[in-house]
């Protein structure tokens, strides 16, 4: 079939559209002037970024929240996917998929309402724990999605064979299905981590005094106008996650 020239050119333009804004941002993060006229190479915005203690604390919070929620969400989500794969539960899978399509703002306000309601009876406050709970809650659905997709390609017959050979259900899960799922679980964990680290809307609503996250700081800075430090942070995030995904893809290939 004749290949037209149109498609590659179009694809090239789309990739440019996708990447050029970010690359420009990265390029200008090295600009010595805070305006959009190139005045010279400089690392001063990176220096400013590293010396900002509020930023450091927010990044630390984001990492802690993302790691903890990813850990729990991945386990809970994987087990849930397996359970649903064995036999579906309409209300559970329905609710989980519904939570996926619920707009973030609605999820956020509903959780805020829940926590405010609880706080009337228990002397607790919004804080890291509420953010982590919220993140686990919405990450479970993402993990479910990815692991389910992987499970659909798996053969139930393999587990049946193991059972016939005398394995318990737990052993069948652990020794037969789980190894097959590993790449899916890794992908799900990565997705959960990214979604959690990047979240702004839900976090901003349920965060407390001690739980300012990186997206919250970024948002406040972005609202205040042009800030080259934001460009510096963006560059680090862009290349950081790019590397992370590249590594994970390589790891998946080796499995």
């Amino acid at each position: 079939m004749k290949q037209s020239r149109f498609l590659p050119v179009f694809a090239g333009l789309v990739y440019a559209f996708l990447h050029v804004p970010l690359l420009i941002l990265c390029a200008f993060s090295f600009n010595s002037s805070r305006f959009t006229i190139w005045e010279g190479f400089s690392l001063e915005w990176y220096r400013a970024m590293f010396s900002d203690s509020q930023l450091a604390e927010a990044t630390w919070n984001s990492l802690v929240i993302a790691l903890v929620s990813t850990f729990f969400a991945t386990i809970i989500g994987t087990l849930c996917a397996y359970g649903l794969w064995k036999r579906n539960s309409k209300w559970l899978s329905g609710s989980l998929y519904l939570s996926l399509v619920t707009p973030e703002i609605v999820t956020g306000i509903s959780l805020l309402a829940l926590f405010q309601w609880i706080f009337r009876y228990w002397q607790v406050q919004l804080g890291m724990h509420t953010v982590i709970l919220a993140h686990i809650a919405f990450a479970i659905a993402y993990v479910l999605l990815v692991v389910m997709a992987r499970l659909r390609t798996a053969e139930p017959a393999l587990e049946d064979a193991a059972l016939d050979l005398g394995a318990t259900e737990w052993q069948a899960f652990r020794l037969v299905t789980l190894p097959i799922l590993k790449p899916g679980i890794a992908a799900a964990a990565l997705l959960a981590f990214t979604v959690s680290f990047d979240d702004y809307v839900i976090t901003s609503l349920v965060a407390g005094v001690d739980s300012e996250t990186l997206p919250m700081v970024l948002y406040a800075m972005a609202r205040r106008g042009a800030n080259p430090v934001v460009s510096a942070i963006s560059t680090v995030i862009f290349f950081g996650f790019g590397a992370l995904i590249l590594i994970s893809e390589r790891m998946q290939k080796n499995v």
Partner: protein
Amino acid sequence: MNRLRAIFLAPAAGFTVLLFLVPMSIIVGYSFLTRGVYGGVVSPWTFENYQRLFDPLYGVILWRSLVMSTAATLLCLLIAFPLALFIARAGARRKSVYLYLVILPFWTSFLVRTYAWMFLLRDSGLINSILLSLKVISEPLPLLYNETAVVVGLVYGYLPFAVLPLFSNLDRLDKNLLEAAADLGATPWQTIRRVVLPLCAPGLRAAGVLVFIPCLGAYLTPDLLGGGKSIMIGNLIQNQFTTARDWPFGSAISLALMALVMVLLMALLRRDGEEAL
């Protein structure tokens, strides 16, 4: 079997009930209550919040959200389809590289990507700086803080959501069908129109819904790129729960939005089944 399965499902069920279903019921409850003087909810039960939704003022916001979301979705599909076609046709090794390049911006923070557009579109942003220095224009163009900027931001943010389902659909397409069409004398354009498009209708529908729903509930993009002027439903809801402190009304809007989303989703699922997702 059932006991193991029950143990496996318990934590997820717990989270779903406590942190999704219960909060949503609270919101349902709030939507029928009245606002306290300076915030909070007080007891007169009322339909007033839902009645207020019919005020033409909010109809405008809903209309605006629908129009912008539709525009963004159509643009996404128009851009994503040829791209997905291109990737599907590529050799196996290149495919994963191309896919990686599509996904990479998606993995970058959404805030960062939105900020990148602020950086480009501001009056003192890059595009205006270049145009000014080339003397194409004498005054900066107001590219930011309007609906077009928001649509561009939405397309930019959700394009990968459109590419991936389309790609997976096109990838599974039987190449023999395309060859057969060519053998029968169809031009590439005719092949696309009469063979490929109908076959990937499910993918198009899935991609459309996957982009439309988040666009409808978008909050960050209209907030940062729209200047707080062209607000969408998401902003209205956030407003009611923070600065306006009118939780009952905010709850009513949220439920109306949820209803809309669910209707769309059911329509898609009924058509294409669960695999569409």
